[in-house]
């Protein structure tokens, strides 16, 4: 099989993985040897027609697989054409793409060829050629295949920038039903091992020359919409993973049906993109704005609202926390105001040192008041002295049509409302596309 066909098959079967980022480490080659750099903010080199960032050569080592995960097009029981790169082929492809400024590096995952160890050895050999023979200092992200021995995970970790173990599905019941060869334990074990090694590596970092273990940390991803978990249980799980395993990122991947199965949504189901987008927003609130999962959702209200972003939703449901005074509020509280982001909060804090800010000042600073005005006062005064009440706020945040559906949603009438709304225009989907640069 020629390299063209291999590349096609092994890209096609890797494309549903979402974590295509090259961020988290800053590095230039020591003494100007070899080739390559890594930039901590990441660089997107192109955008595919779905608007997603292309930062890394994202391929599988092989789409052979001895496992039989129901949602996967590479599962052993499926009749598809199989291909496997040789380590040299893949290393050459990577270095040549890199030279032409197509990519920042490699994102390598794989089906399980004979055994997890066997697969990992092939991946290690590929990356070893890149790092040792080609002296490649660009970015490499590798998947740790559940079931791989600690020794090999360690070896891989010393060669790459980031490692990830996919959680795959948000609960052990779903794993059991859809990915019977994987278990919660087999996934969490390497995750735990990576975390331990990361800690050790940090302690050793004081000694020069000790090779760094996954300097850009570890991440994971899970499929959303293939199984029945609520958003609440999903973000609870993410919160736990951030806490316990010190993950850098959790990625969410809207399930795109590619296989027919009675255990899965039917083939004509649209991927729940809006839901995926809301999950990223909720995740951002937890990682960057200091919200807890319990503040965003709860048992009685377990799904993210499709009509309004999670921060607005939280604000609308917590009227007692508002209004806050921009002249005195803490940084943390400023960030909780709908419409005020990191940049606006920073501007407000640096400008108010010079004197009290009025609404006119905020406008000149470039703070967008459209939403914020309902939640803030300037030295006790509301914007244009308007009276703020709950229904006015909701009215102003939503269009009329959306409002009716929103109210229905609030009362729990349409719990499965997401299914029907993947077609809603996604204004704020930029988060997803940019994830390569965040």
């Amino acid at each position, binding site marked *: 099989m020629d390299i063209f066909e291999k590349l096609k098959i092994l890209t096609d079967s890797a*494309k549903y993985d979402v974590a295509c980022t090259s961020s988290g480490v800053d590095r230039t080659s020591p003494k100007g040897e070899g080739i390559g750099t890594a930039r901590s903010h990441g660089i997107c080199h192109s955008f595919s027609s779905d608007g997603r960032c292309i930062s890394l050569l994202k391929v599988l080592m092989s789409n052979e697989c001895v496992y039989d995960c129901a949602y996967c097009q590479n599962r052993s029981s499926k009749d598809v054409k199989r291909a496997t790169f040789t380590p040299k082929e893949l290393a050459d492809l990577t270095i040549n793409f890199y030279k032409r400024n197509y990519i920042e590096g490699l994102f390598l995952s794989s089906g399980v060829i004979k055994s997890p160890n066997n697969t990992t050895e092939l991946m290690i050999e590929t990356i070893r050629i890149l790092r040792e023979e080609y002296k490649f200092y660009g970015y490499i992200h590798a998947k740790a295949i559940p079931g791989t021995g600690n020794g090999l995970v360690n070896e891989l970790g010393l060669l790459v920038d980031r490692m990830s173990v996919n959680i795959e599905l948000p609960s052990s019941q779903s794993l059991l039903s859809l990915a019977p060869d994987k278990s919660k334990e087999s996934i969490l074990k390497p995750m735990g091992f990576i975390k331990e090694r990361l800690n050790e590596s940090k302690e050793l970092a004081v000694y020069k020359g000790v090779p760094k273990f996954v300097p850009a940390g570890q991440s994971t991803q899970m499929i959303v919409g293939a199984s029945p978990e609520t958003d609440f249980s999903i973000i609870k799980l993410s919160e736990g993973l951030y806490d316990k395993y010190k993950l850098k990122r959790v990625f969410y991947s809207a399930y795109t049906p590619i296989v027919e199965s009675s255990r899965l949504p039917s083939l004509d189901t649209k991927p729940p993109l809006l839901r995926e987008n809301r999950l990223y927003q909720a995740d951002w609130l937890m990682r960057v704005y200091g919200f807890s999962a319990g503040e965003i959702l709860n048992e009685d209200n377990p799904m993210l609202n499709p009509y309004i972003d999670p921060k607005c939703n939280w604000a609308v449901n917590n009227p007692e926390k508002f209004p806050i005074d921009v002249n005195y509020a803490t940084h943390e509280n400023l960030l909780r105001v709908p419409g005020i982001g990191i940049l606006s909060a920073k501007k407000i804090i640096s400008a108010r040192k010079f004197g009290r800010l009025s609404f006119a000042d905020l406008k000149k600073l470039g703070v967008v008041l459209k939403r914020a005005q309902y939640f803030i006062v300037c030295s006790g005064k509301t914007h244009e002295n308007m009276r703020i009440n709950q229904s006015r706020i909701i009215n102003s945040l939503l269009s009329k049509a959306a409002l009716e559906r929103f109210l229905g949603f609030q009362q729990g009438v349409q719990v499965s409302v997401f299914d029907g709304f993947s077609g809603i225009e996604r204004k704020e989907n930029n988060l997803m596309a940019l994830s390569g640069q965040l």
Partner: protein
Amino acid sequence: MNKDEFRNIDICCRYDGSFYGMLSCIFESFEKREMPIQIKSDDFSMFRMKGIETNEEKAERILNAIPKKIGNEALKYLKLAYLANIEEKEIALIHFLKEGFKCGRKFIQLINTGWCPVKKVVTGALTNKYLEKIQKGVNLLTLDSQRFIQFVRFSEIDGALVSIIEPQNQVLPLISNHFVERYPNEKFLIYDKTHKTGLIYMDGEIRLEHIEEYQMPLLSEKEKDYQKLWKLFYNTVAIEERKNEKCRMNFMPKKYRKNMTEFM
């Protein structure tokens, strides 16, 4: 007349287009407290022309005064503005420096946040049309250079990496460091067709050179194969069910696509 004010004169000052030449014009304007109606580096003007000699010493005096009186950031800003595509750039920069010397060290804050430390109010730098122009031009230049770091595409020609770009701004000086660090042991040429300038890196040395014309040489079979492989990857990695043209356009506007392999 207010001593801060410059006398307007109906003269077009002409300089050689260099950075030091521009600074020499600015120096002259400050020294004589005169604001020419135009400052240009070509011969096309309806006004009476006056040639300004490039004078390194005068230029250096301005370069030295800026960090002391306004700050290093302002100097950086001035250099960026020189590279940017700004209408009436030289005149705008005289206004920029005039305001700068008046405000002192807090000037950059005015540019960045719109807070004016002299009048102690948020004025928005944007009340001054020249500052606004410069700010916009510099922002565009910065954005442009980030985009070219992403979207430059090289072809391997006889062991060297070659790329042609057509930027609106002079991005080469801003992206050169990035590529030198990325390819410390390669040879490369990035040719800016708009400004007829080449960024050349060879044997560990980097330089900018005026190149009147340059065309991409014929590609080898190996090179064509890699370009095909890249297109194949690019088209395969997209997920049909997620198609989103608007989003793609946002992050990769049409004007950048012209010389990109995946669109050729």
